[in-house]
């Protein structure tokens, strides 16, 4: 636009030496700018529904998730005055009488108001994440403290339960009454604060998340690779067969794709379980004994088999659409110039399918890494993925902040992998056909 305008300026001037005018007397340059702007606005308005939809259903929730993973106001909500006062405590021995007084008054007030999500029990839950065993202590405190109307509050609280004498409890309280906290990321990375406020690795018996992240990535890679191995010949067949036959084959690929995910997953349960079809056939023809049936489901094997089947179309379709565009004459040309069938395939055909392979692997891998329902149903003990742990924290343990931290790590992992992929494969090479 600007180029065009400057072009105009360099043209020979008109008779009256003024700028070029349109029929209604407005300079052409100006008129053109207005029209273009109006067109842009119209084009933008068409995208408004999508933009709004993305903001409401995608950007805002993800932003909230990121925020929630580091921001937790439970401490300041339940004990606002205490939260300020305890920050001045140096962490040695026990806090002062004034701090105790504020604590007792704050939780009694919170118990009285019983506002949603601002009760002593809620504070107890929050402390319990970092110091197990504190929930019942904090929850029961207001009931026991009711009779106390004047000091000394420290003495009164300590006499209730000797766990109140534990400095670690007060250090934890100091930590959870700060709104911004790294605690949930520490938990998500199998780390914790020790008694001396140092960040250390969690005890081995409690470590689950890091190993599960690696397992999720590893299983997703295996699933992607198996999908590729299975999809490549099918896609080749689809792209080379006569139309009538390939259409029929295509329907066979698409039919499961259109079937409900749950139906397909439960079908795999019927096929793979120890009294299922495969095991029954193996026993019937005598390959294995009735007592030594193969465990094909409720473990990693089950997760891999079911997910490869479910994600297979996402590999076949991009491969097919790319293979369809490769003229058969290329292979014939290679053969006519003396290449063996394998060399022709390796040096002529295969390189041309790379964009499809790139698209298929990226699609399958990213779908697999966040997959939820299939591993939940057939994963059993060791075949569950990180998304199942996240769901557990959102639905069962209700530790939404930890769920958010795990979700954020998953999101970042996917973005890093995408970046690496772009660096080594190049996203511009990607083709879905």
């Amino acid at each position, binding site marked *: 636009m600007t180029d065009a305008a400057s072009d105009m300026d360099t043209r020979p001037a008109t008779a009256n030496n003024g700028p070029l005018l349109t029929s209604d007397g407005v300079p052409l340059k100006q008129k053109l700018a207005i029209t273009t702007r109006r067109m842009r606005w119209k084009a933008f308005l068409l995208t408004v529904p999508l933009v709004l939809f993305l903001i*409401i*259903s995608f950007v*805002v*929730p993800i932003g*909230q998730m990121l*925020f*929630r993973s580091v*921001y937790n*106001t439970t401490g300041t*909500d339940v004990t606002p005055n205490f939260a300020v006062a305890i920050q001045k405590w140096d962490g040695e021995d026990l806090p002062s009488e004034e701090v105790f007084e504020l604590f007792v008054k704050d939780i009694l007030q919170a118990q009285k108001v*019983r*506002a*949603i*999500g*601002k*009760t*002593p*029990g*809620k504070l*107890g*839950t929050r402390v*319990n*994440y970092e110091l*197990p*065993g*504190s*929930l*019942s202590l904090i*929850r029961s405190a207001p009931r026991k403290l009711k009779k106390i109307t004047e000091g000394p509050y420290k003495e009164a609280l300590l006499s209730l339960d000797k766990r109140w004498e534990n400095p670690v409890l007060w250090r934890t309280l100091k930590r959870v009454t700060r709104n911004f906290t790294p605690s949930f990321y520490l938990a998500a990375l199998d780390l914790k604060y020790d008694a001396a406020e140092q960040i250390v690795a969690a005890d*081995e*018996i*409690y*470590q*689950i998340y890091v*190993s*599960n992240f690696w*397992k999720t990535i590893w299983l997703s890679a295996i699933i992607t690779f198996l999908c590729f191995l299975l999809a490549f010949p099918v896609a080749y067949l689809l792209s080379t067969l006569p139309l009538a036959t390939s259409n029929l084959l295509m329907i066979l690929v698409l039919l499961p794709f259109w079937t409900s995910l749950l139906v397909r997953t439960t079908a795999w349960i019927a096929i793979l*379980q*120890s*009294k299922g079809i495969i095991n029954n056939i193996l026993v019937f023809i005598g390959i294995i004994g009735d007592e030594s049936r193969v465990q094909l489901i*409720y473990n990693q094997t089950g997760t891999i088999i079911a997910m490869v089947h479910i994600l297979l179309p996402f590999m076949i379709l991009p491969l097919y659409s790319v293979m369809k565009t490769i003229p058969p004459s290329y292979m014939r040309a290679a053969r006519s110039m003396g290449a063996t069938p394998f060399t022709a395939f390796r040096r002529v055909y295969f390189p041309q399918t790379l964009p499809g392979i790139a698209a298929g692997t990226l699609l399958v891998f990213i779908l697999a890494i966040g997959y939820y329902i299939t591993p939940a149903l057939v994963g*059993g*003990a*060791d075949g*569950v993925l990180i998304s199942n*742990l996240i769901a557990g924290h*959102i*639905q*069962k*343990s*209700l*530790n*939404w902040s930890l769920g958010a931290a795990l979700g954020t790590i998953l999101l970042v992992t996917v973005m890093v992998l995408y970046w690496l992929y772009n660096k080594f494969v190049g996203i511009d090479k990607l083709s879905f056909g």
Partner: protein
Amino acid sequence: MKIAKFFASTILGAGLLMGATAAYASGEITVVSWGGAYTKSQVEAYHKPWIAKTGNGIKSEDYSGGIAEIKAQVEAGNVTWDIVDVELSDAIRACDEGLLETIDASTLPDGADGTPAQKDFMEGTLFECAVANIVWSTIFAYDTTKIADGPKVMADFFDLEKFPGKRGMRKGAKPNLEFALMADGVAAKDVYGILATPEGVDRAFAKLDTIKDSVVWWEAGAQPPQLLADGEVAMTTAYNGRIFNAVANEDKPFEIVWDGQIWDLDLWVIPKGAPNKEKALDFLKFSTSTEQLAKQASYISYGPARLSSAPMVGKFEGKDLDMKPHMPTSPNNLTNAVQNDFNFWADNADQLNERFNAWLASN
């Protein structure tokens, strides 16, 4: 807390977008429970008589437990559920977090024999925000056609030599740790005392180690009877009502072992800000009356929470089958039994589930 509210409302908003609809119809309350045979027993014993009596409608919804939905609704200020059937630990937690209306136990109707409600309900079944309706239990069961001389005690469940075959267990720390300790020789009444010590937890996991390779893990209550029926497992832990239902309704040859049973409560709670709070409260009072609780017990083998209901428990609906021996509260079934300790699990569930998941994933 504004953030939480915003967050919750976004979730809810998304839910609404996806077509979830709320029952705002006048005179209709939304009653939420666990589905299956259990909800059916409530529909027969509570819903139908209440609708007939008051003329109000009921929209019955199923859920799979937990307080995630209650939390989301209440924190978003958009409550669509009027009354919910929850487990004790969830009732306590939701009440603690200020998500529930308080219920004044003194307003509950007297028992049929005139005993005031606070005395008529079993000890430990009335709470600040919740009123118990039934006692249910986690037990273990086996198929009598597969094991002739069946297991008798909890230790048999862990004895793979005497009783070979797979075991079904709930995927989670609760109540497998209790079962493991009892199988290891701890008396039911001492279980939580020992489990409160680190050595006790180690001991429970060590016992679980001995059968780990033979366990099929289940999550939904409907799974264990299916696992037994399919022959996937030789014996399985289960909710007693589900096994009873398979025996009474489907003539399955299952037998319950009551030794080491861990009993628990189901309770009615009203989410804070429920749209039809008054009607929901009326339904709560009606359904937990002596007669209604006794009536429910003729559809499913869960024990009524009122003492005055016990003598009225009769036969299984439509069959000549006395219900009393099948109740978790029957004296014969309580010889070695323990109540689920909600305080213990409130304090330790997060940590022990992490340890359980780590244990599960390790080889």
